[in-house]
C-alpha cells in the first residue's frame, strides 16, 4: 500500500488545498492525510507543517493526542474492539482472542504481512447491540465468533471493507419507548417556519419559558446560553453541535443523528436564528464515521430545500450553514472547551473557564455549544411553545429525556421518558430481571444500588447525559469499576497532574486488587486519591474519575474485600523474580540471592 514519494506528495497537496491550508483544520487534515497510507509517516508531518506554516512540534502535539492517529505503520485492516464494560459482559474478550489467534497477531501489533492490526478502543456507542468493533473506522455491531470468522475470511481474501456484506454493518435503532420527541412526526422546515413567524426575540422568550436544560449532562439552561451569545459583542458567532458522544454507555445521539438528523440540523439553524450566528459546526466523534456520508447527504438536501444556506426560507439576512468536523478518538473532546480546541485543530485540552464559550469560544468568538438532543428539543419548543413544553417532566427538569439502556436486561435500547421517572420504572420496562446496580450517566456518573432504585432521573435527583447500564445480581461490581479505571487512565488528557498521575495510580491499584495482592491499605489509598482528583483536577474528567470506584466501594464493598490479601501489605511485584536478572549475571544461587516471600 506504500505510495511513491511523488504520488504521495500530490495527494497530500490535494488534502491541504481541500482544507484551504487552514491550520485550524489540522485534525481534519491529519485524518485525510492518514487515509493515504493508513498511518502518518514523519515526512508527512514535515510536509503538513510546511504547508500550513507551522512548527513540526505543533503538528506533532495534535497528532500525538488522538488515539485514531497512528505514527507507525498499521495493518491494511485496522480492527478495534470496543472495550466498554457492556462489551465485556457480552463476551468481547473471547471474540478478540479468537480473532487474534486466527490472525496470529498480538494486541496492538501488526501482522507480519502487514495485513491486519488488532487492538481495543474505548466504548464505540453500540452498547445495546455489542460486542462492537470498528474495521477501518466503520462500526460492526453484534459480534459473535461466527461473525469473527466471516470477517477473518474477508480480510484474508483482501476484500475492501466497502464491498463487505451490508448486513454486517446494519445498526438497529432499538427505540423501545418513544415519547414527545421520538414519537412525533416532524416536517423539515416546520420549526423554522414557526420561529420565523415569531421572530428571534419572541422565540428566545419561548425557549427561556420552557426552561429547557442541556441534555449533555450538565443541565445549563439553553435559553440563557443563547441569550448570552446573542448579547456578546462580536462580529461573528458560532453554533456547535456536540456529537462527541464518548461517555461509555451512551448512544442516544447516534440514534438521533442516524434517524432524526433533520431535527438536529434544524435545531442548529434555530440557534443561529436567535443568536445571529451564521456558521454551524457539528463535532462528530470519530467512532461514528459511518454516519458522515448520510449526514453530508442530508445537509445537501436541506440546502436544496432552502433550509440551510443563504436567505433561509426566503428571509433576507438569515444565512446559516453547517459543516461537519470529525473527531479522532478522544473522550475528553466531549468537554465543550476541549471540543473547541479540537475544532481549532489543536490537542483537545480543556480551557480555563471563564471566559465561557458563549463569550469567547471557537476562534475566540461567542460560541454556543449544545448537545445533539438539546438541539432536537428546541424544534419542539418552536412548534409547541415554551409553556406547553413546561408541562412535561418535573419543575426543575422540564420535558423528556432519552436514556440509552444497556447491560443485563432483556430489551436494551433507547427509552424516552418525561423527567422524573423512577429508576425502578426504567428497570421494569427494559426487562431487567434481578438488577444489582445501575451505573447512570456512564463511568463519570453515579452508581445506584437496589435501595436507590426509587430515585428519579432529573437534574435535581440523579442527573444524566443518558447512559443507563444495568448490572445483574451475578455481576462483580469491582470488575465494573476496574474497567472504568482503565478507561479514565487511557482518556486523561495529561494536562494536569492530579488527573494524569491520579488516574494512572488508580488503575494500578485496581490491577493490584484484581491480582489479589492488595490490602486495606490500598482501599484507603483509593479513597485518598479520589479526594485529591476530585478537588485538584482541572476539568470534569479528573474530578469524576474516582467516583465510580468510591460509589462501588461504598455500596458493594464485599466485591472488593473478597479479593484483598489478609496482610498488612504486599508488594504488587514478585520480589524473588525481581532478583532473577542479577542472579543470572552474577551466577549466584545462595540463600541471600533469593527472597521467597515470608511477610
Amino acid at each position, binding site marked *: 500500500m506504500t505510495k511513491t514519494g511523488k504520488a504521495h506528495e500530490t495527494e497530500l497537496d490535494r488534502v491541504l488545498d481541500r482544507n484551504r491550508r487552514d491550520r485550524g483544520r489540522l485534525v481534519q487534515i491529519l485524518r485525510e492525510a492518514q487515509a493515504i497510507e493508513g498511518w502518518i509517516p514523519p515526512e508527512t508531518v514535515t510536509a503538513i507543517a510546511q504547508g500550513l506554516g507551522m512548527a513540526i512540534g505543533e503538528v506533532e502535539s495534535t497528532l500525538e493526542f488522538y488515539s485514531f492517529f497512528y505514527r507507525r505503520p498499521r495493518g491494511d485492516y485496522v480492527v478495534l474492539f470496543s472495550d466498554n464494560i457492556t462489551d465485556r459482559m457480552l463476551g468481547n474478550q473471547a471474540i478478540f482472542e479468537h480473532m487474534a489467534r486466527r490472525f496470529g497477531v498480538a494486541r496492538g501489533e501488526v501482522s507480519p504481512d502487514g495485513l491486519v492490526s488488532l487492538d481495543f478502543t474505548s466504548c464505540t456507542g453500540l452498547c445495546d447491540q455489542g460486542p462492537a468493533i470498528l474495521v477501518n473506522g466503520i462500526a460492526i455491531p453484534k459480534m459473535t465468533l461466527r461473525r469473527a470468522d466471516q470477517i477473518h475470511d474477508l480480510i484474508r481474501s483482501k476484500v475492501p471493507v466497502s464491498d463487505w456484506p451490508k448486513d454486517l454493518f446494519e445498526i438497529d435503532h432499538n427505540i423501545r419507548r418513544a415519547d414527545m420527541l421520538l414519537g412525533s412526526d416532524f416536517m423539515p422546515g416546520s420549526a423554522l417556519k414557526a420561529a420565523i413567524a415569531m421572530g428571534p426575540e419572541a422565540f428566545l422568550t419561548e425557549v427561556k419559558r420552557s426552561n429547557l436544560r442541556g441534555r449533555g449532562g450538565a443541565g445549563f439552561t439553553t435559553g440563557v446560553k443563547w441569550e448570552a451569545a446573542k448579547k456578546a459583542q462580536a462580529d461573528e458567532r458560532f453554533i456547535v453541535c456536540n456529537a462527541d458522544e464518548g461517555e461509555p454507555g451512551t448512544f442516544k445521539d447516534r440514534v438521533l443523528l442516524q434517524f432524526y438528523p433533520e431535527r438536529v440540523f434544524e435545531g442548529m439553524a434555530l440557534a443561529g436564528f436567535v443568536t445571529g450566528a451564521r456558521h454551524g459546526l457539528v463535532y462528530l466523534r470519530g467512532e461514528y464515521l459511518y454516519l458522515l456520508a448520510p449526514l453530508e447527504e442530508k445537509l445537501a438536501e436541506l440546502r436544496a430545500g432552502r433550509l440551510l444556506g443563504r436567505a433561509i426560507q426566503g428571509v433576507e439576512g438569515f444565512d446559516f450553514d453547517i459543516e461537519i468536523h470529525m473527531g479522532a478518538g478522544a473522550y475528553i473532546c466531549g468537554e465543550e472547551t476541549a471540543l473547541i480546541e479540537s475544532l481549532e485543530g489543536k490537542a483537545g485540552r480543556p480551557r480555563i473557564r471563564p471566559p465561557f464559550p458563549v463569550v469567547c469560544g471557537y476562534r475566540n468568538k461567542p460560541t454556543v455549544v449544545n448537545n445533539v438532543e438539546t438541539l432536537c428539543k428546541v424544534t419542539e419548543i418552536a412548534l409547541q411553545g415554551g409553556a406547553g413544553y413546561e408541562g412535561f417532566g418535573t419543575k426543575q427538569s422540564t420535558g423528556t429525556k432519552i436514556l440509552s439502556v444497556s447491560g443485563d436486561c432483556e430489551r436494551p435500547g433507547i427509552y424516552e421518558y418525561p423527567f422524573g421517572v423512577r429508576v425502578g420504572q426504567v428497570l421494569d420496562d427494559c426487562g431487567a430481571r434481578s438488577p444489582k446496580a445501575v451505573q447512570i450517566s456512564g463511568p463519570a456518573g453515579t452508581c445506584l444500588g437496589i435501595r436507590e432504585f426509587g430515585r428519579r432521573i432529573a437534574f435535581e435527583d440523579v442527573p444524566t447525559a443518558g447512559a443507563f447500564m444495568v448490572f445483574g445480581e451475578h455481576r462483580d461490581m469491582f470488575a465494573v469499576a476496574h474497567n472504568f479505571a482503565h478507561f479514565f487512565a487511557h482518556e486523561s488528557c495529561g494536562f494536569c497532574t492530579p488527573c494524569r498521575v491520579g488516574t494512572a495510580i488508580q488503575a494500578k491499584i485496581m490491577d493490584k486488587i484484581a491480582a489479589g495482592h492488595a490490602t486495606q491499605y490500598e482501599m484507603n489509598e483509593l479513597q485518598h486519591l479520589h479526594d485529591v482528583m476530585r478537588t485538584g483536577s482541572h476539568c470534569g474528567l479528573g474530578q469524576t474519575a474516582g467516583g465510580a470506584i468510591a460509589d462501588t466501594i461504598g455500596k458493594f464493598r464485599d466485591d472488593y474485600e473478597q479479593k484483598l490479601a489478609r496482610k*498488612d*501489605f504486599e508488594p504488587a511485584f514478585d*520480589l524473588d523474580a525481581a532478583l532473577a*536478572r*542479577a542472579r543470572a*549475571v552474577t551466577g549466584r544461587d545462595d540463600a541471600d*540471592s533469593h527472597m521467597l516471600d515470608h511477610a
Partner: protein
Amino acid sequence: MFHVAPTTRKRKVRIATTSLSGCFGCHMSLLDIDERLLALAELVEFDRSPITDIKHCGPCDIAIVEGGVCNAENVHVLRELRANAKVLVALGACAVNGGLPAQRNHLDVGECLTRVYTHRSEGMKGSVPSDPELPLLLDKVHPINEVVRVDYFVPGCPPSGDAIWKYLTDLIDGRIPRLEHPMLRFD
C-alpha cells in the same frame, strides 16, 4: 525562635532511621536543624540509625526512611523497620518516588552490571562480583511504598531542616503533621 512542649512526658519517643538507596542527603538535612538538635535530644532517643550505629532495630515509635529500594538488603532492612515501628515515614525524593537511583529503571540491570564490571579499557578483564556478602540488585528501584505500608511522605530533595523539624515536632506533639508551601516542595 522555637518552642517545644515541656518535657514532662514519661518516656522519650524512640526513633529509628536508615538510608536505603539514597545519598544520605536527607540525614544531612536532619542535622541541619542545627541547635534544635539539642531540643530534639530532649524529646527522643535513637534506635537503629547512622547516629547510633545500632545494626538491628527493636520496637520503636517512628522509623524514618531515606532512599528507595534497590537491592535485597534494602528490602530486609525496610521490612524490619516496618515490623518494629508504629509510624513509618518516607523521607525525601528517593523514598517517595525512587528518585535519582530509579533513573536506571529504563535500563536492563544485567546489562548495567556487565557494562560496569567487564568492559574495561586497556585489556583489563573484570567480572561481575558474585560474593554472597554483597546485596543483590533488584531489576528496578522502587519507592518504599511499593514494598511496605507507609504512613507519611515528606517530599523534597532533600526536605529542608525546617521541614523535618516541623514534621517531627508536629508528630511528636500529637498534631496531624502539616507541611505547607514553602516547606512542602519536591525539589
